[in-house]
């Protein structure tokens, strides 16, 4: 474990940034739940205690334990995801939670970290060549299994987080530019899928390119096959989406399609943030929030409260804190001597970053409404808990960044 000389102190920057974000979240929730006598504020405040315990637990468990238990936690996650599908609380047509009276537990929340651990372990293994087809296929499969279960819940937002995790881990893990392109190429196939002619031209170009790069016959065939399949299946995928998902995507493209339904949230959120101006309408003075024009302000749209009441300045403070958290994690991720810890830090950074980007992007109309909450700020006990746990793990790993094991 820690030996003097190789271990560094607690990273106060990260801790303070996270504490500040939690504090700003509390302010926003206070304001957003003024109509409920600040009920959610007090609950979120109370959740601070178990969240702190989670942070400590994450901070104190040695990295090698996480490494050693990576397969077990991953397997457990799959089991829980399966169970929640079968026995979970099916409120609102989605079965994402286990309901324990007052507390709701969402397995996909912990699953993110479990996936980070297992992928970090896989990619950290010196025996594995990151660029080998085998390693790539294993990491895809490891990601795809929980992903599929979460898609079935269905929880599109979290599922996207799982997909997004993989890319930075592979980049940090040392994937070659060529392989990165190979992985990303199906995305291009999606882009071209809407015209059959373009798709065929693209596939031919891909074939030529792969041939020139002297890829193995197996890989070459695989790439073209996957791209072709994706390109042909995407148009049909639309029909597999749930109605509410279709509506969300359509109204994202044009909020005015449904100004009173899904588009309403985006319009009202943009109005809230835009009307905040430079300095905001003042704490508790957000008319959009206080007069209930914005739904779910204390959870998904907490950033709109900050934007309306504290203005551009307040929003920038939140963004800066998140940027600090993400950059610290990336920074130390690349400086860690242990590859597993290093990749775990990158993975945690990816989770945080993706949540921030998608959630804030949603409140300002850059992304569709996905239901991804904002780390540390959004109301929600188990979400707060898992985020603080991740911060604990990060602080733990950063502290031991000079250790090889």
């Amino acid at each position, binding site marked *: 474990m820690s030996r003097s000389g190789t271990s560094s102190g607690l990273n106060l920057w990260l801790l303070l940034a996270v504490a500040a974000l939690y504090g700003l979240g509390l302010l926003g929730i206070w304001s957003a739940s003024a109509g409920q006598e600040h009920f959610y504020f007090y609950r979120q405040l109370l959740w601070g205690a178990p969240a702190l315990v989670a942070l400590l637990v994450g901070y104190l468990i040695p990295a090698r334990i996480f490494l050693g238990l990576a397969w077990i936690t991953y397997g457990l996650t799959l089991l829980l995801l399966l169970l929640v599908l079968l026995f979970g609380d099916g409120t609102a047509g989605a079965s994402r939670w286990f309901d324990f009276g007052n507390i709701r537990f969402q397995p996909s929340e912990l699953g993110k970290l479990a996936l980070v651990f297992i992928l970090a372990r896989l990619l950290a293994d010196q025996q594995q060549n990151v660029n080998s087809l085998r390693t790539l296929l294993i990491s895809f499969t490891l990601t795809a299994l929980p992903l599929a279960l979460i898609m079935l819940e269905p929880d599109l937002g979290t599922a996207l987080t799982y997909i997004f995790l993989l890319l930075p881990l592979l980049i940090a893990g040392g994937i070659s530019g060529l392989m990165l392109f190979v992985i990303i190429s199906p995305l291009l196939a999606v882009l071209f899928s809407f015209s059959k002619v373009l798709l065929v031209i693209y596939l031919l170009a891909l074939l030529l390119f792969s041939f020139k790069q002297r890829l193995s016959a197996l890989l070459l065939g695989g790439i073209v096959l996957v791209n072709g399949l994706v390109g042909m299946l995407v148009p049909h995928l639309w029909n597999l989406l749930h109605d509410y998902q279709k509506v969300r995507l359509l109204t994202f493209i044009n909020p005015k399609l449904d100004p009173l339904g899904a588009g309403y949230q985006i319009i009202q959120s943009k109005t809230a943030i835009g*009307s905040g101006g430079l300095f905001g309408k003042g704490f508790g003075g957000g008319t959009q929030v206080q007069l209930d024009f914005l739904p779910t302000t204390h959870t998904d749209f907490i950033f709109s409260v900050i934007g309306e009441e504290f203005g*551009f300045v307040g929003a920038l403070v939140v963004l800066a804190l998140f940027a600090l958290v993400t950059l610290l994690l990336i920074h130390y991720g690349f400086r860690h001597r242990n590859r597993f810890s290093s990749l775990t830090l990158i993975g945690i950074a990816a989770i945080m970053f993706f949540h921030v980007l998608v959630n804030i992007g949603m409140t*300002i109309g850059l992304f569709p409404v996905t239901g991804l909450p904002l780390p540390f700020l959004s109301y929600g006990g188990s979400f707060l808990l898992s985020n603080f746990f991740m911060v604990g793990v990060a602080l733990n790993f950063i502290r031991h960044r000079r250790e090889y094991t």
Partner: protein
Amino acid sequence: MSPQSRKGRRWILISLTLGAFLLLTATLFYLQIIRYDYYRGKSTQNQMRPETIQPFRGQIRDRRGRLIADNAASYSVWAVPAIARRDTNVIRQLSGLLERDLERLQRKFNQLPGYSWKSFRLLRNLDFAAYARLEEHLDYLPGITVRPDLRRNYLDTTLAHVVGYLGEVREQDLTDKPDLQLGDLVGVRGVEKVYDRQLRGEPGTRFVQVNALGRIVGAEPGYSEIPSRRGKDLFLGIDLELQHLAHELLGDRSGTVLLMDSRNGEMLVGVSRPDFNPNVFGSRLSQETWQSLNDEQRRPLFSRIQQAVHPPGSTYKMVIVATAMQAGISHYYRTECIGAYVLGDRVARCWLEEGHGWQNMRQSLAGSCDVYYYRLGLQLDVNSMAAGARSFHFGELTGVDLPGEQAGLVPDSGWYNERFGKRGWTRGVLLNLAIGQGEVLVTPIQLLQYIAILANGGWSVVPHFGVRLLDREQHLSQSLEFPRWETVLPPVILEVLQAGMEDVVATDGGTASWLRRSAYTVAGKTGTAENPQGEPHSWFVAYAPAQDPQVALTVLVEHGGHGSEVAAPIAFRLLDRYFELYAETGE
């Protein structure tokens, strides 16, 4: 992995992260700084609504200031369509809670502009119990609010046809009444309609903050209220005491009793029966009430005052006398009545079977001798009779301040030619016209105006119920002006007409002599209008006192029988009371 590659990968991830944060920052900058004004305006519009403050509708009072129509507190249900239509159950629940017909309520809701964030009045006149019930369930009724409102309250129910009542403004009328909105009340009958503009007042505006459910949460800071302006109070010429007496005297018979100050045209009494309670239109109409209001036989919604047209019967004889004298026939013209008159193969009877004997013009009025008029009529022609009638304004509107006035009919040769063909009618029609029967049709208010001309020695007045408007906010009283003009009537003709009408009561041969009073003198004329539907209509027209007229009156009892027996007694009992009340002052 080489340290170079490691460093490069670090920069890829860091620049991707920074790029994303820059994108978010740039978007925030765009929303909060560049588009600030737009979103600020939008958020203000979101929460701020101009709400109409309903003006207090002016009261209606009688000539002595006694209240006839007032406003009482009630509650209204308002809906913000854009919110309420999001939940399809809202209207269903509302109809359940208030026990209203779902279909009608839904139809009414559907008429509102569905996209609108404004409040529209959906239902009115809720009592407190209904208000309390609704208030409890408001959480399940997004977009619905209950607010205090005013309800029209009629304290007098004998004046339904004069005062009228209110109804919701029709959509097609909204274009020329920009200060009204859907769901507002306007007068639909009576003086409520005629003086609607003055009574209504002007709505005010206050700026309120509403929440996303459309509920008002308070006044919008920084916006001052534009107060509503109370409507003007309308004072009628009606004397409620006389009105009630007349209403009672007419009883359940259908007809009308009109009493007017003949000097200026102010209406003291305006009874038309059958009538209705105007307050029933304020609340839900029961099936039973609705049926009784639409009774085809009784027609309680039909105002006989200015809308009923009947032959004038013998009350028309003054027209014939005037026409004859204008044509050069002397009032010394005498003829004998033997109870009937024979023209070719037609026998025209006098109402008095034994006959009136020898009569002059004045006597013929007093005894209402039909034979005398048959003879007079045959010396005239249809067109000169029509001209005579028109000189007393028959065939045209009196201009009374009630809506829907009828002009009646004064037939001339053109009319007969059109109706029956050039050869389709004979001089025989003169026999009918001479005694006010046949095709000629008049309204009770026309007869009243005609009697006033005789009472005033030629001066015409416009009968009117509204007398004065009072602006209580500015303490300004404004008298309503109605024209007066002189009808050219040579004094010699006037004298004969007045003397004849006086004799109707004053001489023993007069048709209303049995009603003669010692306290005051009356000049009058009875009339019995034959009609094919049954008993004849009973008319009595008069002015009093005969020497210095103050009032003119018309009484009509439909299917009442002889004028002298039915209509005249009502008139005298009303005049008794009038002179008790107004003897000394003359006012």
